[in-house]
């Protein structure tokens, strides 16, 4: 009798103890996995403004520094330099925006006005004004960004490079 009472108590104790542990651990685990549930570090803008349309000359690439703000958990960091881009305003006011990094090994690409060509100084990659590879080791054309213009301000989709 005493023995079966104790076995029963053991089972009940285990069940209760397990329930208690589960009740405690559920919210704890929910908190631990927070970074799976929510982004903790992110840029605050999808499209980043890079200047007024009027400030870009037609047909001539202009190098622009891209700044944006970043949320890092509770902090916001404003005016961070994300990188830079080449912006070319077309005659019809549409825009082409290229990464300044060479598609070969990522060196900084320069614009050589005399010959109207982009030149990567590292391995002499040459690209035309539309970013098309003309010569050199680059496996593809220059990287570009989607753009949009609102209220005379130029925005680029800096997250998605194409």
């Amino acid at each position: 009798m005493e023995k079966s009472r104790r076995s029963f108590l053991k089972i009940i104790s285990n069940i209760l103890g397990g329930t208690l542990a589960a009740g405690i651990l559920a919210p704890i685990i929910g908190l631990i996995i927070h970074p799976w549930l929510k982004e903790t570090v992110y840029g605050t803008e999808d499209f980043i403004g890079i200047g007024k349309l009027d400030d870009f000359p037609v047909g001539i690439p202009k190098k622009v520094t891209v700044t944006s703000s970043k949320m890092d958990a509770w902090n916001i960091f404003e005016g961070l330099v994300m990188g830079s881009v080449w912006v070319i305003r077309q005659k019809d006011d549409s825009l082409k925006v290229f990464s300044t990094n060479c598609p070969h090994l990522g060196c900084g690409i320069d614009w050589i006005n005399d010959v109207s060509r982009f030149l990567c100084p590292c391995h002499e990659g040459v690209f035309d004004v539309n970013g098309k590879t003309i010569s050199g080791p680059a496996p593809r054309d220059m990287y570009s960004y989607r753009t949009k213009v609102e209220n005379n301000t130029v925005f680029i989709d800096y997250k998605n490079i194409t």
Partner: protein
Amino acid sequence: MANKIYEWIDNRTGLNKLLKTALDEPVHGGARWTYIFGSGLIFLFMLQAITGIVMASFYSPSSTTAWGSVYYIQEQTSFGWFVRGVHHFGSSAMMILAIVHFFQVFIYGAYKKPRELNWITGVFLLIFLMGFGLTGYLLPWDQKGYWATQVATNIMGTIPVIGEYIKVLHQGGSDYGNFTLTRFFTLHVFILPISLVFFLFVHVALFRKHGVTPHWKISEKLLKERVDPFWPDQVFKDIVFAMILYAILAGWVFWKGGAELQAPADPASNYLARPEWYFLFLFQLLKYCQGNLLIVGTVIIPMIGLIFLFVLPFIDRTPSNSPSKRIPFFATISSGMAGAIALTVLAMHHDAHDIHIIHQREDAEIQAARAVILAKKGIHPEGGMSIFLNDPIYLGEKIFKQNCNGCHKLKGIGGDNAPDFTNFGSREWLFGLLKNPKDKKYFGESGVMSPVKLPEESLRDITEFLLSQSGNLLNTSTDSLERGKELTLKGNCAICHPIGDKNAIKIAPNLTDYLSEEWLKEFIKNPDDKKFYGTKNKMPGYEGKLSANELDALVKYLISLSNDHLLVSECVLHEKRLTVSENSQQTCNKLLNSFDLKMQESVKNVGAVSFLTPSIHFGILTEKYLFASK
């Protein structure tokens, strides 16, 4: 398979024997519900350890990041508020249970030879527990923790000769700063837990050695006859108690909505500090020990109490455990406890009736709520307080207190010469004004306007219409508004008050755009303008006395005094990350549309935020436009 692994491990570690020793301890006299308190404390300590460790993985101990990280745990994670709540209220639960355990041990006489060291290690554990409470209170770096802990460190400073050195050592410097937090954090998560675990180990080992101290009426015979194994007989009771404790604690956390987080610590504010409830008796004691006597309250009385506890097992040498044989000791402990309870009650009673404390608590709550709203936009690296630096309401409140509060009473504080601004601009406020402008709360005897003698329903309609003029009234009812419009324009109001033409002049203030930001600004600048009070004016004008920014901040603050209005600057924060309640969302959208044109003008003028998309620039704009372009 599992058995084989277990066997393998057991062969090499003797795990089985260890478990048997731990679990098969005989409980003489039988397992009892009265023995659950010690194990309940161990359970709560484990709960504190688990919740604490998880929070430590989010927490950042520095004066610029502490508040932000706690805010993040509280507001941005799914379970953070609950885990933090369990940890926060868990400390109170431990304190209560520790007191119960203490009294049980005392009443049962369980401190007597040969258990003196059980008792002494227990007293140490109680001191550590208070240390946890004290150090943990500061870590969020909010107003309450910051100011309450100041009191504690200042008490350290009153210890003769070495006080100042001890204080500097704890603070990590002569004033509060980064090192105060790193040191309190180190104490809270390393030094105190390690010390507590060590003493707990000794405490439990000694308890095992000497066994339970049964009730004094249980006979020796029964003690020898009835022996239950610790597992499962006593463990079952302990688990049930642990479950009850956790259920109460979780229920309490839900009921309270988690632990409080006040606004970030502001060293420049004059906050009335109050410690956690279990330190209130010491706090109250200090009120009676002033000047040269201070040391009596801070050091001497607490020391006497502690020394008494430490020597109790040596001075109480009566062989019997029966309370009736230990009356002097019962009297001492009971009077000490009664004193502590009385002091606690006095402190609570005083605070509950002190109007300054009540208002401060209200203000602290409002400020805390505001801090959370502002922090959602992200906290600048300068630290928690930076959220207020660009906040018009915060600045506006300061301006109000400096310039307006002398005549306009607010929440019971301030002068009586002008209308009371409690709930200024709310439906209730304006309704009251219409009903009786000569009420002491409004214009008093100097009021020229006579009460509007209409049924209450109609007064409410007029209120609705007049307040809707501001363009930011929440939850407007179109029907009531239309009726109010009719009553106002065709009734007696329009005889004295011009409505509809901004520049029209009659004998009473022009109510076109009444209580809108622009109306308020114009009014505050020149209340004696003919379109306002004209020659009947008594209020000083502030044109030239307040800068455009200050005026703007003041007006925003005034609008924020009622719950019936929506502040433009709160409309749109980062659209993706933030949710505004549905009601205000609708008003926001309306506002956005109507203000969009104005705002685009501002963008052109300022150019500060021109890169933001139109949908998000609005909220940031109002702040930046007004405060970045100083």
